[in-house]
């Protein structure tokens, strides 16, 4: 028996009293159990963006090369040669904490579907991950499960995982972040959208059968965690990458014909959100008969069918005369194919089950009258700029460098990458770690894409506006640093409970910073995802607006990476003030997490980046690395380790304490390897860009300005130690 429909039942479904009142007004009667379920998931934070929409509108989303911005399943940009890149990043944070392997795996599966549903063949995956303290016993299990899950899914579907980032911080102890990004390629005049059309046209269900997994996943993702979150494990979905692979091939085969009018994957809120959104966007109605939905279990109710988040399912509206053609293609790939309804002119969603009408809801108010909140905000208090002269450097340069390159946030990620297939497809020009951005060539063409994910959450925590701008700027910088023309970003906004004014203040400020950077750098947002309520027991994560950046190279062979040839000059581009506030040196060596983060000068950012990119494309620059976490010496050490070539640093800073000069995190900086430093310095001076010679590449050691020396072998040992050692340690409990 289904429970009585009451305000308290609505509350347990995540609807407030006011929202339930709105449901009653729209329906003009008490909703059925199934109808209440549909309202609750459609109006969940996850599906409705009810707290974030007012702010998201501030982001620039247009440029001449943007084909589809936010609002479709993924963003679409023109990359030349008649092709479009389709990409998006999406979070799977809550499921990944409850069940790390399946949570991460289905995160990859979900974002892949968002991309191939638009007609693109996925060519690359990336992921932005944040975990709790390594000392926390649970963290290791989460890291291991998430990495295995990403690999298990991505490796099997045959899409290379080419990049990403990992941070550790206690703020993620109870709430890790798993943000997965997929990039696909399509012909730009063959993009598939989700707006349903054609009264009477069949609504077709393809893919896996529907089971009881993931019911109310979207609602779970819209609430804080508590100590009993383990009980929510049944709301996590189970991934089947093999079926996903078949679905990719079958959909792309069908997309080569003219059969599809509209298509959307069944993601969060499954059949409910896909049918409601498709019919709503097309201003039509939709009629579903659940008796025809392929079911994995017997005795499922209408409510369970509508709210199941079983994976690897798609909904399509087909041309009626192409039904057999489509049926044959899905039969070839051994996938379920079922006509489960029709498009109507009623403007309503009508759901039948066993001959009974289980739901009958007008679509317009379900979509248009969804709650929209302008929640109260409180600004994050400003932090003081730190004076580096007042901080003592107890370690010196060599020990400081070794400590930094070995710390969890900067150490080698090889243990992780070695579990991801980064080469399948045969187009990976720069694998993870080889360059500031991953580079994937387009099959049969010279053209290549550059891809990166970036965010520095500790900057965002200290100053969300600067942090938001910095995340966008760093993504742009990483694309420029390989020689690519940055085109657009996808954003994955991970924040705490939006009902707290401090959290909503972080969100609003981060958006402000991002918007400024996107505008200044001509780097619009074309897709994104918002994940709120990232809190456990009332403790919020660091504000984490993860940015996925995409750029294009006309010739992939022109790209440069970190590896530098010997006996070149090393030149630093950009101003160094010794900015130590919020630096990794300050945290890892001085044990402090305070101060204002480095300011982001967007004008300088653009000028420096364009100068560097021009140098790469004209062949002057032979290797390039942006200077970010850990500052100049860490960047240099990374270049040495990537190339197996040492470097001798000869510069001596004046007026700035040595540690702050070498480990400070001023923005808009790059290290370039060039044959002719004086020539480059003259060009920089003419362009009004700060530049200085740091030293020379060559040999087998990194020789520091204070006379200290460390061999590349020792650097690599220090850099490579953390992950394998940590993972091999047996837990005490």
């Amino acid at each position: 028996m289904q429970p009585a429909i009451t305000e308290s039942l609505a509350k347990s479904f995540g609807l407030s009293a006011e929202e339930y009142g709105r449901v009653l007004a729209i329906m003009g009667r008490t909703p059925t159990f199934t109808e209440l379920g549909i309202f609750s998931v459609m109006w969940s934070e996850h599906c409705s963006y009810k707290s974030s929409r007012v702010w998201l509108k501030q982001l620039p989303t247009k440029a001449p090369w943007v084909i589809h911005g936010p609002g479709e399943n993924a963003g679409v940009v023109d990359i030349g040669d008649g092709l479009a890149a389709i990409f998006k990043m999406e979070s799977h944070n809550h499921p990944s904490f409850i069940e790390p392997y399946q949570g991460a795996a289905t995160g990859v599966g979900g974002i892949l579907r968002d991309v191939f549903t638009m007609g693109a063949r996925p060519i690359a995956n990336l992921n932005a991950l944040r975990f709790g303290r390594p000392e926390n016993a649970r963290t290791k299990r989460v890291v291991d499960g998430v990495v295995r899950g990403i690999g298990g899914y991505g490796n099997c579907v045959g899409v290379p995982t080419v990049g990403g980032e990992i941070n550790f911080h206690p703020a993620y102890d109870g709430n890790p972040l798993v943000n997965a990004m997929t990039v696909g390629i399509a012909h730009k005049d063959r993009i598939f959208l989700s707006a349903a059309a054609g009264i009477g046209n069949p609504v077709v269900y393809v893919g896996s059968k529907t089971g009881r997994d993931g019911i109310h996943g979207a609602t779970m993702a819209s609430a804080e965690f508590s100590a009993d979150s383990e009980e929510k494990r049944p709301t996590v979905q189970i991934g089947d990458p093999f079926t996903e692979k078949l679905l990719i091939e079958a959909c792309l085969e069908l997309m080569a014909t003219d059969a599809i009018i509209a298509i959307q994957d069944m993601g969060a809120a499954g059949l409910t959100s896909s049918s409601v959104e498709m019919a709503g966007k097309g201003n039509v109605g939709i009629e579903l008969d659940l008796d025809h939905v392929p079911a994995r279990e017997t005795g499922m109710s209408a409510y369970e069918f509508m709210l199941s988040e079983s994976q690897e399912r798609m909904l399509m509206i087909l041309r009626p005369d192409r039904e057999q053609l489509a049926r044959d293609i899905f039969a070839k790939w051994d996938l379920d194919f079922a006509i489960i309804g029709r498009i109507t002119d009623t403007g309503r969603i009508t759901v039948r089950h066993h001959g009974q009408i289980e739901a009958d809801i007008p679509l317009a108010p379900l979509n248009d009258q969804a709650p929209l909140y302008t929640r109260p905000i409180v600004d994050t208090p400003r932090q003081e700029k730190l004076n580096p002269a007042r901080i003592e450097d107890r370690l010196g340069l060599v020990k400081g460098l070794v400590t930094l390159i070995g710390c969890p946030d900067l150490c080698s990620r090889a243990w992780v990458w070695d579990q991801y297939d980064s080469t399948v497809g045969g187009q990976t020009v720069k694998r993870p770690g080889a360059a500031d951005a991953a580079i994937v060539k387009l099959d049969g063409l010279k053209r290549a894409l550059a891809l990166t994910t970036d965010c520095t959450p500790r900057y965002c925590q200290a100053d969300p506006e600067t942090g938001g701008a910095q995340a966008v700027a760093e993504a742009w910088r990483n694309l420029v640093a390989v020689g690519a023309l940055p085109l657009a970003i996808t954003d994955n906004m991970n924040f705490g409970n939006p009902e707290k004014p401090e959290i909503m203040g972080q969100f609003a400020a981060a958006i402000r910073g991002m918007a400024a950077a996107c505008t200044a750098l001509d780097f619009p947002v074309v897709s994104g995802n918002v994940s709120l309520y990232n809190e456990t027991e009332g403790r919020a994560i660091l504000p984490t607006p993860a940015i996925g950046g995409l750029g294009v190279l006309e010739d992939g062979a022109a790209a440069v990476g970190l590896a530098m040839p010997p006996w070149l000059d090393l030149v630093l581009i950009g101003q160094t003030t010794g900015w130590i506030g919020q630096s990794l040196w300050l945290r890892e060596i001085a044990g402090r997490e305070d101060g204002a983060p480095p300011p982001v000068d967007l004008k300088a950012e653009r000028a420096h980046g364009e100068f560097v990119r021009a140098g790469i494309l004209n062949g002057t620059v032979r290797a390039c690395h942006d200077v970010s976490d850990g500052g100049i010496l860490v960047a240099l050490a990374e270049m040495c380790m990537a190339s197996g070539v040492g470097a001798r640093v000869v510069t001596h800073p004046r007026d700035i304490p040595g540690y702050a000069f070498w480990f400070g995190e001023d923005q808009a900086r790059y290290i370039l390897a060039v044959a002719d430093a004086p020539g480059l310095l003259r060009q920089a001076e003419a362009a009004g860009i700060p530049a200085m010679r740091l030293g020379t590449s060559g040999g087998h050691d990194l020789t520091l300005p204070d006379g200290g020396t460390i061999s590349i072998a020792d650097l690599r040992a220090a850099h490579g130690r953390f992950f394998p050692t940590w993972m091999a340690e047996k837990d005490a409990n």
Partner: protein
Amino acid sequence: MTPGIILFPGINRERDMAIALEASFGRKPRMLWHKDTDLTGVDLVVIPGGFSFGDYLRCGAMAAQSPIMRAVKDHADRGGYVLGVCNGFQILTEAGILPGALLRNVSLRFLSMDCHLRVERADTVFTNRYKQGQTFRAIMAHGDGNYFADDATLDRLEAENRVAFRYATQAGEITPAVNLNGSARSIAGVYSQNLRVLGLMPHPEDLVDPLMGGDDGKPLFDALAAA
């Protein structure tokens, strides 16, 4: 010689293989479907890598039962050429066309990285563009690449000089440290008795272009194209 690539559901390195074959053969390979049973006109059957049928059963076990595998067995029995890479190697062992089996990597983790293979003999249709004892770089990308056979089988393979490649250092030394998946006697690939069927775990097809990090795998395909 006309190459054909077999597509099982879940195979995912067919495009990589097609690129490598086309680069050496100068024309696109034929694509064959797992439900086909006719290999007429195909001289070299290639089974690429991936996760056939999801590898939800033992790797390659489902694919080995596909309709086309009877035709592949007949082709091999007639002295036809067959190349199986990664999942393709697993399928060939599951089908009984090559001896041994591929177990989980000893680390119990997926391994995705470069490795060096030592060429154990350079007089086959696959390896005659390499020199015996030289090493070349290839890409590992597998969770189940730990070659296993009983001692009698391993002794016989060695006695018949049917070990194609071993995991080695760049200089050609065979050490446990570079035998990452734990393969018996560091074996990365084996031949059939007539040396016309080759199965190996690492991917030569992903290193046929310097832009992608090297072309160490290209001589294998050049040799086949010239046969």
